[in-house]
């Protein structure tokens, strides 16, 4: 018996409307036909290369895409259709978002006040607890974002979701800039929260770290999820994986010997091959 579904994303597409040099409307598709399900107590890692549109997925769910973005498809939260109005009600209360960089902190506000946010003084104690939890000195609360190192900023951002006490967390690249020990701590923390019944979406380009904590891994390529597989499938030589791109990605890991398939005809590595729904092949025409 599987747990209750928290977030269900069906056929999501995200595109941007803009004007080209001849002032014609042009449309650029960033995400096409994306499906994703997150259940209570589950960590779903979304793994993909930089610039593949992973962050846009998070922004689309949180309804914080820019004005010129157009979305399609449907999203449900606990069975309720996620309209923009519903999302505006849920965000920060039911769903917490952990953004990527220090640029998401107000440069002119002390970070302690930012972690507390609009929750009021009752959240002050939670903020102090969060800082202790993530190994930040209490004096950090009085600093401004420009005074933080990359790792400190990351831990401040993690603290914001800690105080929110939501049912679901969407973390966008929460680990870069942290040293390995704290990175693993932070990921374990997501594990603990998931085990308490929360749902977690972990967006990362680090498949290795994702394998440590996630239950499911969605392999993301060029705005699409090419495959969602249980973490156990990622073992041996990856033969349990359905899509050749997932297998190639897994085999390219250091512990799997940096293996990169090469095109038998022209010798180009599979990193340059074209990927579609069924498989991947080299651009030179050979399979």
């Amino acid at each position, binding site marked *: 018996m599987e747990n209750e579904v928290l977030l269900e994303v069906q056929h999501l597409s995200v595109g941007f409307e803009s004007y080209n040099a001849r002032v014609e409307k042009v449309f650029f598709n960033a995400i096409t036909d994306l499906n994703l399900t997150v259940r209570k107590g589950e960590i779903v890692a979304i793994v993909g290369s930089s610039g593949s549109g992973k962050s846009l997925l998070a922004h689309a769910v949180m*309804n914080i895409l*820019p004005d010129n973005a157009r979305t399609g498809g449907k999203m449900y939260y606990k069975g309720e259709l996620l309209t923009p109005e519903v999302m505006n009600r849920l965000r920060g209360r039911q769903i917490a978002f952990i953004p990527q960089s220090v640029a998401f902190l107000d440069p002119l506000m002390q970070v302690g006040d930012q972690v507390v946010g609009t929750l009021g003084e009752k959240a002050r104690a939670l903020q102090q607890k969060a800082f202790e939890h993530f190994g930040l000195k209490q004096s950090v609360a009085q600093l401004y974002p420009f005074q933080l190192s990359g790792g400190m900023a990351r831990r401040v951002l993690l603290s914001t979701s800690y105080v929110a006490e939501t049912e679901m967390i969407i973390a966008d690249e929460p680990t870069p800039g942290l040293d390995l020990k704290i990175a693993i701590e932070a990921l374990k923390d997501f594990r603990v929260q998931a085990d308490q019944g929360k749902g977690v979406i972990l967006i990362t380009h680090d498949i290795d770290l994702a394998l440590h904590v996630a239950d499911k891994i969605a392999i993301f390529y060029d705005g699409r999820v090419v495959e969602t597989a249980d973490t156990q499938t990622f073992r041996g030589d990856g033969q349990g994986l359905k899509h050749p791109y997932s297998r190639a990605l897994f085999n390219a890991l250091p512990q799997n010997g940096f293996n990169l398939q090469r095109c038998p005809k022209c010798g180009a590595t599979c990193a340059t091959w074209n990927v579609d729904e069924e498989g991947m092949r080299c651009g030179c025409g050979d399979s």
Partner: protein
Amino acid sequence: MNKGLLKYLTTTVLRMVLLLIAATMLSFFLVHNAPMDPVDAFLGEVTVSEEQRAQIAERWGLNKSPAEQYLIWLGNTLRGDMGESRTYHEPVTKVLGERFRASLLLMGTAWILSGVLGVILGIVAGMYKGRWPDRIIKTFSLILASSPVFWIGLLVLMVFAVELQWFPLGLAVPIGKIESEVTWAERLHHLVLPALTLSITGIANIVLHTRQKLIDVLESEYVLFAKARGETLKQLITRHGLRNIALPAVTLQFASISELFGGSVLAERVFSYPGLGSTAVVAGMQADAPLLLGIALFSSLFVFFGNLTANILYGIIDPQIREGGGIDG
């Protein structure tokens, strides 16, 4: 820190001195090469003999070389004697003092009015970007920004003074009244139209800048994150908007002092308001070198201190300047 402060003060004072010398030198160069002859301008319709003309020129030091004249003025000014105005037959310091009081009232009112109204309208426009309040405010500001001060002044005069007759046509006090009998209400009554004209022209700039800055802030990543944490538009404005537009608003407000000075020359002229601006025009027309140099010196100082205040306020408002470099840990 103290060493840095000392260095800052030294360079500031040095800059100020250089600015004052440059401004007065340029003014002297201009008035000296102007087509008006100071003696002719002084005498007006009165005819005098060549001998008497020469005596006046001699008394004013006009027969000396321009460099010598300037240096004499500089030397006297350093001792606190700014000479006597040829037009008003009074010491320059006294003329400046009187005129500046009238101007200060006018410019101060316009400055506060345009600053407060400008920021409020800018915030409203930025908040409702693309919707009707924004369109109205933006159109209004663009029209104002592209209209010259004197033209707006004339329009204001036609509507409020000629047609509606709510306010007097000009001057700072009623005609034919002794200075001591003028009431504050009368002064304010005379102040309204010139102050309105002067603030209207400054306001557009402040509205448009504040609007754009607020739009930038509302599109920033930190506001995205605040939204994602459930903050409402009102909370976004009060928690992040105001904080982040404060710095550019202060910059603009203090930088506008120089424009205000320029605008006051035209506004005072249109309303025959006896302030520093209209006095500058008179001094120029009469080739009244001591008075003109005095005004140049005074207005440069005023603008300089405006900018200096802005610099000091930055340090107070912006933690990135106030708290210096980063802290590791």
